[in-house]
C-alpha cells in the first residue's frame, strides 16, 4: 500500500483519460446505431464493405513500406554520425525542425515544394522536363509527408542508441581483423538491432494512424483513404459514433498486431543472446 499511494495520481490520470474512454469506445462499438443490446454488427459491416475494408490494405501499404524506409535511412544516416561529425548540431537542428513545426505546416511545405506549381516542378519545367511525375495528392505525397515527420524522431532515437555503444568495442573488432562492414554486421548491428526494433515499432504505430497527411497531401477519397479517414467520416460525416468506434478499435488492433510482430522478432534475437544487453551496458 505504501507503494500504491504515490502512484495514485498517475493511475487516476490513466483511468480518466485513457482507460475509461478506451473502454467506452469498445463498448460503444458493440452497440450499433439504432439497435438494442450488443452485437458485432459494426465490425461485420466494416469488413463486409469493400470500400471500408480496403482502408486497412491502403493504410498498411503506406505504413509498412514507410516504416522500413524511415528506419533504414535513419540507420544509414545515424551510423556514420556515431562518433560525432562536423556541423552535427546544425544538422541535428535541421532534422528536428519538422517535429517542431507540426503536421499541417509540413504538409503545406510539401504542397508548396513538391506540388504541381511547386518549386520542384518549376525547376523541372525550366530544365525542359515537360511532364514531371505528380508527387502530391497521391500515395507519394503521403509517403513524403510521413517520412519528413517521422525520420527526425527515428534518427534521433537511433543516434542516441548507436552512439551509446562503447567505441572500444568497435576498435577491438578492428584490431582483431574486422573490416568496417564486418564491424557493423558482427558487432554493431547485433547491439543496435533491439533499438532499431523499438524505433520501427513506434514509427509503424504512428504511420498506421496517419490522418492529417493523408488528407492534406494525399488523395483522401481514393488511394490514400486510410483507416483513420474512414473513422473520421463515420464519426463526423455520418455521425455514426458506434461505427467510428468500431473502426478505431480495428485500427488499434492492427497497430497492436504490428507491434507484436516486431517485438516477436526482437524477442527471438534476445533468445539467441543478441539482445540480452542494451547499448553501452555490460
Amino acid at each position: 500500500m505504501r507503494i500504491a499511494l504515490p502512484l495514485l495520481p498517475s493511475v487516476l490520470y490513466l483511468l480518466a483519460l485513457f482507460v475509461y474512454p478506451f473502454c467506452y469506445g469498445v463498448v460503444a462499438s458493440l452497440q450499433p446505431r439504432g439497435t438494442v443490446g450488443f452485437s458485432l454488427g459494426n465490425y461485420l459491416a466494416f469488413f463486409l464493405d469493400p470500400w471500408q475494408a480496403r482502408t486497412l490494405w491502403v493504410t498498411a501499404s503506406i505504413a509498412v513500406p514507410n516504416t522500413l524506409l524511415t528506419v533504414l535511412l535513419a540507420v544509414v544516416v545515424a551510423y556514420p554520425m556515431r562518433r560525432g561529425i562536423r556541423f552535427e548540431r546544425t544538422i541535428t537542428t535541421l532534422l528536428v525542425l519538422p517535429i517542431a513545426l507540426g503536421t499541417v505546416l509540413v504538409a503545406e511545405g510539401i504542397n508548396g515544394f513538391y506540388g504541381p506549381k511547386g518549386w520542384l516542378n518549376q525547376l523541372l519545367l525550366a530544365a525542359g522536363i515537360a511532364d514531371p511525375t505528380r508527387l502530391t495528392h497521391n500515395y507519394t505525397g503521403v509517403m513524403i509527408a510521413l517520412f519528413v515527420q517521422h525520420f527526425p524522431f527515428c534518427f534521433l532515437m537511433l543516434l542516441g542508441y548507436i552512439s551509446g555503444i562503447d567505441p572500444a568495442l568497435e576498435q577491438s573488432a578492428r584490431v582483431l581483423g574486422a573490416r568496417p562492414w564486418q564491424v557493423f554486421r558482427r558487432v554493431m548491428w547485433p547491439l543496435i538491432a533491439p533499438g532499431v526494433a523499438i524505433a520501427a515499432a513506434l514509427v509503424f504505430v504512428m504511420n498506421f494512424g496517419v490522418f492529417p497527411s493523408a488528407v492534406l497531401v494525399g488523395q483522401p477519397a481514393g488511394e490514400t483513404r486510410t483507416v483513420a479517414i474512414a473513422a473520421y467520416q463515420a464519426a463526423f460525416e455520418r455521425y455514426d459514433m458506434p461505427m467510428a468506434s468500431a473502426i478505431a478499435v480495428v485500427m488499434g488492433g492492427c497497430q497492436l498486431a504490428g507491434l507484436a510482430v516486431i517485438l516477436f522478432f526482437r524477442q527471438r534475437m534476445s533468445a539467441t543472446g543478441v539482445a540480452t544487453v542494451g547499448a553501452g551496458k555490460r
Partner: protein
Amino acid sequence: MPPAIQSLRFRLTKRFGAKTVLDDFALEVQGREFVTFLGPSGCGKSTALNLLAGLLEPTEGEIWLDGARIDPLPPEARGFGMVFQNYALFPHLSVFHNVAFGLELRRVPRAEIEARAGRVLALVQLSGLEHRYPAQLSGGQQQRVAIARALVVEPRVLLLDEPLSNLDAKLRLEMRGEIKRLHAALGLTAIYVTHDQAEALSLSDRVVVLRDGRVMQAGSPADIHDRPENLFVADFMGYRNLFPITVTTGGAAGRVVGSAGALTLAGRAPRPLASGARGVAAVRPEDLALTSESTGTNVLKGRVRLTEYLGREHDLEVELDSGHTIKARVAEPVAVGTAVGLRVAPERVVMLPAEGGA
C-alpha cells in the same frame, strides 16, 4: 606461435588541432621485448598505442615492422592484438565466440578454431566458462577473456592499454604476474601503457617515460628507478624529497656536493653539474635510514613532525634543523616530537639540473 618479429620501429607525431599530443616520439622495439610507455594522464602514451594499432592516424611519422611500412595499413591489416582498459568484450557473444572472433574473420577452419580457442582459454585459466556471456563474468575473468581474445590470433605485437587499472589491488597483482608469465612463455613482443610505476618496473624490459608527448627518459626499469635523468622522472618514480640546491663542489658525472642554506648533501649527478650551478637533490624516502651518528656525510638531524603507520614500515615527516622538511620511510616506529638523525648514502642522492636546464 609464429616466429617473433625482429623489430617494430616508429617515429610519430600527433596533433589534435593546435595541440601536440605526441611530439616526434621515436623508438625501436625489439622482437620479444616488453616495452612500457609510462606517464601521467595526458602524456600521450595511449595516443601512441592507438597510433600503433591504427585506430588513430599520425599527423606525421612512419611505422615500420620488420622492414615493411605499416602506418598506411588499416588496423585490421596490421596483425596486432590489443587489450583495452575496459576489456571491450563483445557483450552479445559468449566467451568462446569472443575468443573465436579474430579466427573466424581469418577464415580459420572450425575444428582449428575450437582447438586454438580451447588452448588459449586454458592458458588464461578460463576452461569451462566458454558458454558464459561477458556480463556473467567477474572483472578478472573479463580481463582474461580480453587477453585470450588478443592472444589467440597470434599477434605480431600485443598492445595493452592500462589493462589492470579497472581491477582491485589484489587482482591487479595477480594479473600482473599472469601477464608476465604469458609474455615469458609465449615470447611475445608487447607494448604496455600504464601510469603505474610499479607495473612498469615489474613487467618491462624497457620503460619509456613520457610527458606532454615527449620522451623524458627511456631505459631499463633499474635505470629509470635508480638513475632518473631529470626532475620529472625523479618525481614520477617516487623521489619525494626534492631540495633545490646550489652546487658547491661540482665535477664530471661523479660526486657532487650541493647545499641549500644549512643543508648540505653529497650525491651523484647523471649529467655534469658545474660548481655554482643550480640543481635539485632528489632523495627517496625509502633510502633514508635512522642513524645514531651526529655528524658525517649526509647525516641530517631533525625532529619528527608526523608519522604514518604502513604495516611493515613507518612514514615519517621530519623537520630538519636546517628548516627543510624531509619524508623518510623507516623500519622502526618513532614517536612524534622525537629528535632523530637520518642518513642517506651519497650514491642514493641524485643531483639533477634545476628544471629548465633539464
